[in-house]
């Protein structure tokens, strides 16, 4: 059974969520892998939401907002524009492929663009594979992993 990506999408209320809605009313077909979460502005998207989404089981996170210059709250999307690249750097530092986080500007009339973004991002995540966080849970029965076949396993045998 092939892997179905689970993607969380943070969509700003005024442009992107409306654009997504337009894709729906226009009956455009796209993969069902994105769970859309409406936020009032892409500037509301805290990097903590993105990390929490990965922790909760998302394989990819999509953030969509109004085009720069068109933010309903004037500057919110600029804050998003600054935060997402640094969040990608942070993800890369954690060994999580930063291509799992995507920022796109989708306006209220761009239903077709929304369909294209979802389709391409789902395919990208399908290629990257599932994200399984290593050693996140502490299991008291097996509190640790000794790497098989390594010098350490020999030393600890």
């Amino acid at each position, binding site marked *: 059974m092939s892997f179905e990506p689970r993607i969380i999408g943070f969509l700003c209320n005024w442009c992107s969520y409306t654009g997504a809605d337009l894709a729906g009313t226009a009956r455009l077909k796209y993969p069902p892998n994105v769970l859309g979460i409406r936020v009032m502005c892409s500037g509301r998207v805290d990097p903590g939401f993105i990390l929490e989404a*990965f922790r909760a089981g998302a394989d990819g996170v999509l953030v969509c907002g109004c085009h720069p210059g068109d933010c309903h709250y004037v500057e919110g999307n*600029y804050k998003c524009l*600054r935060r997402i*690249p*640094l969040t990608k750097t*942070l993800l890369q*530092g954690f060994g*999580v492929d930063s291509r799992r986080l995507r920022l796109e500007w989708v306006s209220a009339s761009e239903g077709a663009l929304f369909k294209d973004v979802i389709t391409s991002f789902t395919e990208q995540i399908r290629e990257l594979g599932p994200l399984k966080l290593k050693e996140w849970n502490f299991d008291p029965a097996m509190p640790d992993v000794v790497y098989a076949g390594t010098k350490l396993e020999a030393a600890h045998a």
Partner: protein
Amino acid sequence: MPKPKLAIYWAASCGGCDIAILDIEDKILDVVDFFDLAFWPCAADFKYKDVEALPDGGITLTLFNGAIRSSENYHLAKLLRQKSVVLCAFGSCAGEGCIPGLANLYTREGIFDYAYLKSPSTVNPEGIIPGISTKVPEGELTLPLLWNTVRSLPQVVDVDYIIPGCPPQSDQIAAVVGAVIDILKNGKPLPPKGTVLGATDKTCCDECPRDRNVKKIAKFIRPFEIVPDPKLCLMEQGIICCGPATRSGCGAKCVSAGVPCRGCYGKPINIKDQGAKMVSAIASVFDTTDPGEVERIIATIPDPVGTFYRFSLPDSVLRRVQV
């Protein structure tokens, strides 16, 4: 009426928390006057079997400092949890992993490889790496197993209270200990389980004496590159300061002395991930709306993960590097 027992233990720790406890100066006399010291390996000759011999709940209060990164640390965490009425995660190592937690940027094998084989000053031609047991004529000798992932105390046992700080500031320790003695002496109720003691509910920025204005940062610099203006916010001057994402309670002593906050009091109240909040705080004030310039400004931040999670890596949302 026997005196209540007090235990102070150090797991993966530097010893700074034990020194900070002594740093409450003459108040330590109130402590030894009220409590009967049951176990404090740093300061006196106690053995693990002394703890094992106590009944469950025989220790009234345990201040447990140090992160959990070995089977020995875990054994004592479980043992002291069993024997204590109140178990406090004392200090940043126990509370959130602190500096030992930065081992979560690597793997145990990588660390052993570097320390015992590859570091420039290592001479180890036979390639000997520590194991966990060896047979000698007298029998078997064992060493604790070092874990691949460093954990905080609340991640491995049930903890009653957390006292943050690296180390917790002595005035805060004195206040907490004084409150505990007051509660035990006068039969007052304990605070709700899970309360953070010895810290307040704002961020370090709130305690900082410097002037703060609307920030626009064009690039970040290392602290040695300028002589900072003593009255102005350090971040405004381009120095990365973790004050916006660090719990208050320390009195902002570092920033008052001209040193940027490193985040040792851990994540603020109601926050899950300190580093993510630092990303939000730092990135929001980049002085640009151009994506290319954003990348250039990011390039002036050396080691974002290590800087933003210096103290809180094991307690972060992702907990460790995914290797």
